């Protein structure tokens, strides 16, 4: 934060990967692979995923978080990701921004959840300044008191990942697949989904958002675009992936049974 704006000397390197419409499962596999097997810093931007998908945190229980009956009926894929946090339903209107960093890369940021979260709030403050009443509230990005960005993290010994799904736009009916979670932020105040979230498109265009985000990154990192093969086999990674798609029977087990 004390680095002079004019010079990039001394800023840590960051590889930038840009996608559009990549399936969220492939994105998560790539992210976990980069977290666990790379020693570079990475920024991944996926401008919308290809199809509506439910993504739960690592310890999420379908019976508590989803309307399992509707999910099964409509055959909506459900993924459990390798990071913590809550449940989202993502689709082409969701923009993903992921940061994967070495623990010492960012000055003043300690490898603890709140430290990383706080720093990310400062970063996005640079992005949204002038576009709305933006702030980091508890663990969400909000305009006013309405959430438009959800966060999740994973911290290992030497690195951390902080990834965000931004609701640039969403389908109201998709929200119906998600239950009101038991573990909700205080500021939610038992509001339903439609009263709790807002659309980023009411504040800025997609391209403006992505451009400003990349510009904010350049204030903290020496960013260089790279190409990666998102289709690279997950089995060659050298570790067992934690991200997985839930099978039908796993969801069926979450259905309440009555006689």
């Amino acid at each position, binding site marked *: 934060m004390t680095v002079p704006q004019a010079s990039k000397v001394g800023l840590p390197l960051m590889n930038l990967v840009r996608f559009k419409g990549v399936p969220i499962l492939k994105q998560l596999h790539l992210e976990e692979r980069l977290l666990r097997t790379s020693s570079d810093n990475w920024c991944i931007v996926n401008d919308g995923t290809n199809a509506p998908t439910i993504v739960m945190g690592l310890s999420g229980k379908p019976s508590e978080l989803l309307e399992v009956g509707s999910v099964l009926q409509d055959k909506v894929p459900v993924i459990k990701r390798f990071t913590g946090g*809550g449940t989202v339903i993502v689709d082409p209107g969701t923009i993903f921004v992921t940061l994967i960093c070495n623990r010492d890369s960012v000055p003043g940021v300690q490898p603890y959840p709140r430290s*990383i979260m706080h720093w990310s709030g400062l970063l996005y403050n640079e992005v949204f300044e002038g576009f709305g009443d933006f702030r980091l509230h508890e*663990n969400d990005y909000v305009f006013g008191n309405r959430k438009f960005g959800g966060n*999740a*993290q994973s911290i290992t010994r030497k690195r951390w990942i902080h990834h965000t799904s931004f609701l640039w736009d969403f389908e109201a009916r998709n929200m119906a697949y998600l239950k009101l979670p038991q573990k909700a932020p205080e500021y939610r105040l038992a509001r339903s989904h439609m009263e709790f979230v807002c659309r980023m498109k009411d504040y800025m265009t997609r391209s403006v958002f992505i451009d400003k985000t990349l510009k904010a990154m350049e204030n903290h990192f020496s960013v260089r675009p790279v190409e990666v093969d998102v289709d690279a086999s997950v089995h060659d990674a050298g570790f067992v992936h934690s991200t997985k798609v839930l099978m039908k029977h796993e969801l069926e087990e979450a259905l309440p049974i009555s006689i």
Partner: protein
Amino acid sequence: MICRRIWRSYGRRWWLCSASSHTSPPPPPPRACQQKSPLLGFSSQVFTTDLNIPYDMRRCCFSTQAVIDLQVGGIVDVPLAQTGEGIAECELLKWYVQEGDEIEEFQPLCEVQSDKATIEITSRYKGRVSQIVHVPGDIVRVGETLLKMAVGELLVAAQTSENFENMKSVSSEICNSNSESSVLKKASIGGVLSTPAVRNLAKQYGVDISDVNGSGKDGRVIREDVLKYASNKGIAQEALTSSSDSSEEKECPHVSAEHGWDCEDKTVVLRGFQRVMVKSMTLAAKIPHFHYVEEINCDALVELKASFQNENSDPNVKHTFLPVLIKSLSMALSKYPFLNSCFNEELQTVTLKGSHNIGIAMATQHGLVVPNIKKVQSLSILEITKELSRLQQLALANKLSPDDVSSGTITLSNIGAIGGKFGSPLVNTPEVAIIAIGRIQKSPQFDDDGNVYPVSVMSVNVGADHRVLDGATVARFCNEWKLFIEKPELLMLHMR
């Protein structure tokens, strides 16, 4: 034991300190703050996360408090370290290691989750996993023990920040109390250099360790110094041949017979499980017992066990009679809750316990121990089988946790596994009933025509506290239990 308690109380104080140090003005940062946290977690400096503090002013949570990390017998309680300011607890997601694994420093041990983050917990020590304390799904408070590791015997005293620079890690071998490989600092307790095991030994002899001349490195007091001092003072001498865990020693009573005319009296100091038995049986002696004896036809039970074993595809599961006996016991207790209670003499009240935590007496080389299976009313027979096996393994390895052996509500003693027709058991205080079961034996019985046919019979003896239970209640309870054992299909009527 005492040393561990001290560590825990200091450990708790440390956490209080770290919370309060955030709000007080920061102390001057220590010079060359290269210390590593003695606790599990991120094996670098521990910082508070207030970013309003300029970057170069990092606070060290240790700088103003004495933290003593003591270990007894080489086993370390490894807690969940602070994972971030204000985070009080995490959910344990999964283990990367299991009991018995050799662990390197910085090796990932497990993954926990707090709020939005999954966090990999790495090991501060090189050693061996001795006991996993929590299972995935458990909520673990910061500071609570996650697992126990064997890291060799060391005394790490971290009183002030200057001492941190001199701390060295120790080898992973489990040393006995004669090891001199660790670097010691003068402990704040008593001002004498020695290890916790030696202090324990001195205490058991009633010796003030500061009176003992230390012959070890840097004048430290070693085991032999204490024994020599005790012997010189005329305190009863311990067998010096014992090389196992110094907290438990057992003397075989037949040794003197083997030596014939060279018999000498040998006095054994009771420790560990034996000491616990002295205490609990002294209390049991105050209870007015009565005993109720019954015989149970186990033909159906034998058939059921065979059926379970035939359908069993899991090589790790071995079906025995006990789990069915335990489950049917729980069913009977639901109808006769007074047998699952505890008595308060002072207040003249009986507390009917909500959970059926059924204790199973186990004979180990370290003595009699009674771990209990918690909430049997909610467990299936298979779950009971697995839990029983888990407790048996731990008991044999002397690795039962305090939780495993506390909060029992009734005890089952399968003395028949060793021999005898049945026993006359003493109640395991503060419970009010205990059941000793004898061996299942083939017995001849007569049918209506006077023909002899074989029946598998098991004798049981229920020991009961006559202040709480009367003969009629115990008899009725026993009839109910007997019915479930003789007709196990009736268990299905009550299945939830």
